[in-house]
């Protein structure tokens, strides 16, 4: 296993080869300084993204996905925060821009869609206005032109009877409709990079699919670069080109989304896959939740951050934090001493099983259950719609 020095991640998918790099994040760290100590929310994240591609960032709640996205956007993290590293957007380091310069990029070059459409629109402002104000901030258009453009956008994101809805207040629309409004607003100034921070988490499943399809369609049609943040691998399966798996503020695995599913390397990614909801299971079967909780970000364990929950954990994992290294030549990277599928991994599993390690036993059990119901472990069978 060779340790690679190159900090960037290049995908192998053929259609990406011609694309130029739009975003390159290098060794990004973000910490909050709290009374109980330093909370390292993002710990040295690097990746690069080519124009027109889509990237999924996956991880459990608290893994630092939102903080990562906001750090790149330099968006409002508070006064007790320190960010280091760099984030080159079109060659300019966003982290070194003044607030004024940054504001000129916000909403025009880089846009963001937030998790909860119930709270991300101002409840006291008509939805049309919230799109129009965005247009008028950045474009030299009069009221009427702006309204027409807003109408076109609302139609584009498939809001039925946009003409009559434009003067509605957010609470008069359903959650899905509101998220469509947010999307319309985000698209208003044709951004080249769009962050979507869990855009569907607050919505129910059918609406989720519609919104995700809408986003994918817009992304492709506009040749926009998109970063999709989610805690659900099922959301990005079949939708994003590349995937980055985060745990406790670090990237633990990154590859093209197909590779992530087909050649899973990291035990945490594997665990996330086991927790994707499956349509073939009886609807109330509990998900195979990952044993234990993510670590408290102020008190990270020594060595590998996943070690307290990992079914393959070995003494070495407690001592040394595994670096993110390339696997093969495809740009696939993973940070684990005992990657999934390796002989070392199988031996570790057997050893832990005979030591009756709780998380190992839990995995063995769920494997048995899957075998008896005929579903291969680690592959989602719902999700991709």
């Amino acid at each position: 296993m060779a340790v690679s020095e190159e900090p960037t991640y290049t995908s192998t998918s053929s259609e990406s080869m011609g694309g130029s790099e739009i975003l390159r994040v290098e060794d990004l760290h973000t910490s909050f300084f709290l009374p109980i100590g330093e909370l390292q929310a993002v710990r040295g994240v690097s990746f690069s993204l080519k124009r027109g591609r889509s990237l999924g960032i996956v991880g459990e709640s608290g893994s630092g996905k939102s903080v990562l996205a906001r750090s790149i956007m330099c968006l409002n993290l508070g006064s007790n925060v320190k960010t280091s590293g760099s984030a080159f957007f079109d060659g300019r380091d966003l982290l070194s821009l003044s607030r004024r310069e940054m504001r000129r990029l916000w909403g025009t070059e880089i846009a963001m869609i937030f998790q909860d459409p119930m709270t991300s629109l101002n409840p006291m402002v008509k939805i049309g206005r919230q799109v129009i104000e965005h247009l008028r901030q950045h474009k030299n258009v009069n009221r009427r032109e702006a309204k027409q453009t807003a109408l076109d956008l609302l139609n584009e994101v498939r809001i039925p009877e946009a003409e009559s809805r434009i003067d509605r207040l957010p609470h008069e629309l359903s959650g899905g409709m509101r998220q469509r409004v947010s999307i319309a607003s985000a698209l208003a100034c044709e951004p080249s990079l769009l962050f979507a921070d869990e855009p569907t988490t607050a919505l129910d499943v059918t609406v989720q699919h519609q919104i995700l399809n809408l986003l994918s369609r817009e992304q492709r049609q506009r040749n926009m670069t998109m970063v999709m943040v989610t805690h659900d691998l099922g959301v990005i399966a079949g939708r994003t080109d590349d995937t980055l798996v985060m745990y406790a503020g670090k990237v633990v695995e990154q590859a093209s989304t197909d590779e992530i599913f087909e050649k899973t390397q990291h035990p945490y990614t594997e665990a996330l896959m086991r927790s994707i909801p499956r349509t073939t299971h009886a609807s109330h079967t509990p998900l195979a939740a990952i044993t234990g909780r993510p670590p408290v970000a102020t008190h990270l364990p020594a060595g590998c951050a996943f070690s307290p929950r990992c079914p393959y954990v070995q003494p070495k994992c407690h001592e040394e934090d595994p670096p993110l290294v390339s696997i093969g030549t495809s740009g696939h990277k993973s940070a684990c001493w005992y990657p999934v599928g390796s002989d070392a991994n199988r031996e570790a599993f057997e050893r832990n099983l005979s030591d009756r390690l709780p998380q190992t036993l839990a995995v063995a059990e769920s494997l048995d259950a899957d075998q008896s119901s005929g579903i291969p472990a680690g592959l989602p069978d719902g999700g991709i719609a």
Partner: protein
Amino acid sequence: MSKMLAIRLMRLVVTVIVVSFVTFVGTNVLPGDPVNALIPIDAQQDREFVEQIREEWGLNDPMVVRYGRWLGDAVQGDLGRSLVTGQPVTDEITHRLPITFELMAVAVGFSLLIAVPLGAFTGYREGRRSDRLISGLAQAGLSLPVFVTGLILIYVFALRLHWFPAVGWNRLSDGLGPNLKSVALPALSLAITEIAVYTRVLRSDMIATLKENYILSARAKGLTDRFILFRHGLRPSLLTLVTVVGLNIGFLIGGSLVIEYLFAIPGLGKRLFSAIQQRDFMMVQAITVLITVFYVIVNTATDLVYMVVDPRIRRTN
């Protein structure tokens, strides 16, 4: 909306009847015979004369009858005659009411004019030096009683700088300039506490609002801070302020009483003072009812302002 106003109107009528009756009873069971206000002290021993006056003013009828008579007249705009001056109460009130009203309106208007930008700004700059300075001043303003503020203002701006008159009142008919000069110090004395209260209320709501997700998404749209503050931040932060202003206008009546006394302003408050001292029950009764009506009107106005501020309420009504 018109339904709401109709309900309000009914409530107003009921409230006025209840309050006026309670005041009526209250003033009548208090020790002290109202007839004494009518008659010079040396004549009070003359039983026959006293009885004659009682009869003349209808003081011998049962309380309910007297109340009924008063109410009947009041509905027609006749609030009786002052027991002290013998003049129609209505005349005196129409003469004095505009003064008190102007004083309060200027005080409230001025304090909002100052407090809204100040509250929004300090909320936006929470914890910064400018916020700490202004909030500290507001805290100080809050702890000053109205009459102390009044005395300080009189000392500095009237006695020392001679910018404004120390006492007295010029009516609007005497010209806008002199009128504004005489309202300035008393209104400012009232306003200082109000400014302090309103600034603090708006500041804390503003801080909460600025943590909302829609503020973050407005930022992500690249809107300017000022636009975000006043277009997205202010409106949702106004609801508590509206409530507090509504309540405070009620308290302000008490404050203007003190201020009218201090500045020798011929308003209603000053008259209520002397009426109570002189046991001029007709006057007390009339002013009390007036304050009640005012209270209910302010309450209704507050609800209307909610609708203006919050379009969601407008839609559901």
